[in-house]
């Protein structure tokens, strides 16, 4: 992300947030923000440096008020008229409160479907266009537009609040926000770099807004550490597994930033799922994968999440530290029959034990369950190398 893009995202989110807070209408806020940015391009003299956020907010607010006055259906809403009276302020008001935290809790409210939460967050906080979001998630633009319209309508119709949740709701709601950021990151991990960048940007903004929440730093640390290996993860369109990656391609700046965030999370007493995953990622990036320690971290994580996928990861770490037989034992009875990585992992461990036929069978099962061409090539290569062993 360039400096200009960074600056745009910061300001876009802040302008939209202030307007949603004032008028309670996401559509109106977006349209007015768009106009304000367009006006800035025309009228703000380049020699005066970057456009101040306060100028953008005031301009957008005045555009919104104009729109409410023009549009009778909006003007018939008494609460909006009240907001107009309150909002009319002269140009150049200097201090603008950052209300992006309220905005992200609004976008990630559990009364909205998760896909809608993701799209709204990227649109209102990240400043992505509907078209960009649709392309990133491989859905038609019309579908994405419909999703956003429905979500914005529900925010108004059901009065989803614009505020940081009170303490009794906060843990659950923060978990939802972090889940959205993580989901965006995961989508990006599959090769759509712009989404990984977006998730890291959102994570950074969130860490700035909630500096005392260890899981926020944990999530950011985990994303940075995983992302540090981006350039090494593919070679000519093929996936490269961790052990075979060219470490000189790992991004040292990302690793440092990730370690710093992890340090903060731990200093705040963080022991949650994101902090644990960040510790695991850090062990890979920094200690050359201390597998015994990684196995312990996965054991902690499995207790906290109850997830069989975490157990599968633990099996890999156990196999590395205590041998493939011990790893296989962890895999026994995991309810992941339809999960391709269960079978590819079993195959790998069986192959190491010299149980070639069983290994080939497990690789074939994994192949049946995947539709990703890069993975298919990787698995076929493994089956072929079994024959030579």
């Amino acid at each position, binding site marked *: 992300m360039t400096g200009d893009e960074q600056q745009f995202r910061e300001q876009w989110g802040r302008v939209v947030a202030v307007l949603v807070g004032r008028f309670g209408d996401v559509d109106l806020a977006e349209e007015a923000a768009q106009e304000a940015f367009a006006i800035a391009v025309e009228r703000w003299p380049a020699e005066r440096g970057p456009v101040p956020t306060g100028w953008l907010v005031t301009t957008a607010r005045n555009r919104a008020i104009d729109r409410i006055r023009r549009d009778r259906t909006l003007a018939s809403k008494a609460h909006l008229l009240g907001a107009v009276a309150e909002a009319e302020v002269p140009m150049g008001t200097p201090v603008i409160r950052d209300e992006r935290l309220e905005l992200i809790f609004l976008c990630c*409210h559990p009364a909205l479907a998760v896909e809608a939460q993701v799209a709204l967050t990227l649109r209102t906080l990240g400043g992505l266009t509907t078209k960009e979001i649709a392309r990133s998630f491989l859905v038609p633009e019309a579908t994405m537009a419909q999703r956003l319209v429905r979500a914005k309508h529900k925010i108004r*119709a*059901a*009065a*989803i*609040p614009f505020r940081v*949740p*009170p303490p*009794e*709701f906060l843990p659950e709601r923060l978990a939802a926000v972090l889940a959205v950021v993580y989901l965006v990151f995961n989508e990006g991990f599959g090769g759509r770099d712009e989404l990984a960048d977006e998730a890291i940007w959102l994570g950074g903004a969130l860490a700035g807004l909630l500096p005392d929440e260890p899981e926020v730093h944990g999530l950011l640390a985990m994303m940075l550490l995983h992302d540090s290996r981006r350039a090494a993860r593919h070679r000519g369109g093929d996936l490269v597994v961790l052990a075979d990656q060219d470490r000189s391609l790992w991004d040292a700046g990302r690793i440092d930033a990730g370690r710093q965030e992890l340090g903060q999370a731990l200093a705040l007493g963080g022991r949650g799922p994101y902090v644990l995953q960040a510790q695991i990622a850090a062990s890979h990036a920094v200690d050359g994968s201390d597998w015994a320690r990684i196995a312990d971290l996965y054991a902690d994580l499995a207790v906290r999440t109850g997830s069989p996928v975490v157990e599968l990861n633990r099996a890999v770490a156990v196999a590395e530290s205590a041998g493939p037989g011990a790893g296989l034992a962890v895999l026994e009875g995991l309810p992941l029959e339809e999960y391709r990585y269960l079978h590819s992992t079993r195959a790998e461990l069986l192959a190491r034990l010299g149980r070639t036929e069983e290994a080939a069978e497990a690789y074939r099962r994994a192949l049946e369950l995947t539709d990703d061409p890069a993975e298919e090539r990787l698995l076929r290569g493994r089956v072929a190398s079994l024959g030579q062993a």
Partner: protein
Amino acid sequence: MKYMMLIHQGTSPTPQRPDEWATLPADEQQQVYADYGALNETPGVTPGLGLQLPETATTVRVADGRTLTTDGPFVETKEALGGYFFFEADDLDAAIALAARVPAARLGGAIEIRPIMEW
């Protein structure tokens, strides 16, 4: 903001079904009565009228000008509406917090929150 709160009984025991109701310990039964009493006393709540069991429902459709009458609720019996009330509140979070206090929500049923149309 005004919401209609629809109580879906699901599998939660109700005094209208004495056999199921008897599976609840006496103190839990008392708690259910107390909780519904407290809900009705909550500022902003307008209690609904009591409904008889979904089995007593009759569903009517009109096709080609003919009235078709069938026995039972529109949806399946265990998904049918069990009761309702209204709640006037600042926002959806207030309605969610109140819905979580409805006994049916913790005993196998669910509460649906529907914003009331404002003209």
